């Protein structure tokens, strides 16, 4: 196994890098999009609330693979040629943003409504109260679930293998089919995933216990 690792070191590391990059990009954008839709779900305006709800329900209930393959096949057909990595990261972002929206919305709801009322009575607008009073308190509650979302995101980034995204899973498959050492290759790939996911999920368990 050591020999397999050393002789394919650069492929494993580049796959690891692409997986990490895709996950971090998707996390960043889905945090922005997810928070936006979470706020849409709690605004006083009913039409906006419905838009937020529809977005979240649609993308939470469709497989990530369907979303990713759709972007991979359809965007090049009509708009612009994109590679598998971009299509995969877009798919990941949209899928994850729906879950993050749910998480953030739960966080916003867990903040005492008195906070919003007090902020409004001090003359703040809804958006100002949201931005300065409610969201900072909500984020404290949502950090453990967001960490778990990031773990899911890293695991889900393996769908990049379907669209030739050069991620860890894709490289693993390539190495497995060249060397015929399938078991060892997949064990190494698994260890690389665990390097990212295990510490985060243990840390989040620790945080959850501390907050509870």
């Amino acid at each position: 196994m050591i020999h397999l690792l050393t002789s394919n070191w650069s492929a494993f590391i580049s796959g690891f890098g692409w997986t990490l990059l895709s996950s971090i990009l998707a996390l960043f954008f889905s945090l922005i999009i997810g928070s936006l839709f979470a706020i849409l779900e709690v605004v006083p305006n009913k039409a906006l609330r419905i838009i937020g709800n529809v977005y979240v329900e649609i993308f939470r209930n469709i497989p990530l693979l369907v979303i990713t393959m759709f972007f991979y096949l359809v965007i090049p057909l009509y708009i612009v040629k994109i590679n598998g990595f971009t299509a995969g990261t877009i798919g990941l972002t949209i899928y994850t943003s729906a879950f993050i929206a749910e998480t953030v919305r739960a966080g916003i709801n867990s903040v005492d409504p008195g906070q919003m009322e007090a902020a409004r009575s001090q003359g703040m607008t809804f958006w100002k109260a949201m931005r300065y009073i409610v969201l900072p308190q909500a984020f404290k509650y949502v950090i453990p679930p967001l960490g778990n979302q990031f773990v899911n995101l890293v695991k889900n980034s393996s769908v990049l293998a379907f669209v030739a995204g050069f991620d860890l899973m894709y490289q693993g498959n390539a190495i497995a089919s060249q060397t015929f050492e399938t078991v060892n290759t997949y064990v190494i790939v698994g260890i690389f995933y665990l390097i990212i996911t295990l510490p985060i999920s243990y840390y989040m368990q620790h945080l959850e216990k501390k907050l509870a």
Partner: protein
Amino acid sequence: MQNWIDAYSWINIRFLLQGLWITILISVISVILSFIIGSVLGIIRYAKIPYLSRIIGFIIDVIRNLPLLLIIFFVYFGLPAFGFKPDTIPAAILAMTVFESMMIAEIIRSGINAVDIGQMEASRAMGMNLAQAMWHIVLPQAYKKMIPALVSQFISLIKDTSLATIIVVPELMQHGQVVYGQDPNYIIPVFVAMAIMYFVVCYALSLLSKFIDRRMA
């Protein structure tokens, strides 16, 4: 130009529905098996049996933190090296069951943790043994609390069966690929149809879970 009318011919739609049937079949079999295995593992982890709980806890954490796709590959391409070569559908069920059991084990453990410890102590004080107290008193309360988490895990399972398309399991995603493979003008209609089918099944389940949750509360 996307050809919606031809893409939605009855032959194609029927083929997609056959795929949906396999998707549901794999999901249901896997979820039943995982529920049983997950319950046992979750209880063992909760019970803090020396060594055993630690080892099982570690295995649960490792498998939970791996991508399901990797487990599918491992079962289908890796297990033959140990002299066991499953067919595509059993391989998919095996991989799903291994992964979901670990997810469910965690849900079960935290569900049991959420039941007031006093319930267990009171049952023990009434002369029940550990197994009796678990079975008659603690678990029924724990399962009630777990229903939303279990249903949402089942929904992810249904969505995750689409990954099995990579080992050519004839489920919905794979059948979709066959249909739009005939003609690039079928791509958008087929994706819309697949999305609707997955959505209807998953959304119905999430409504059901909300309904049960409200009934119980």
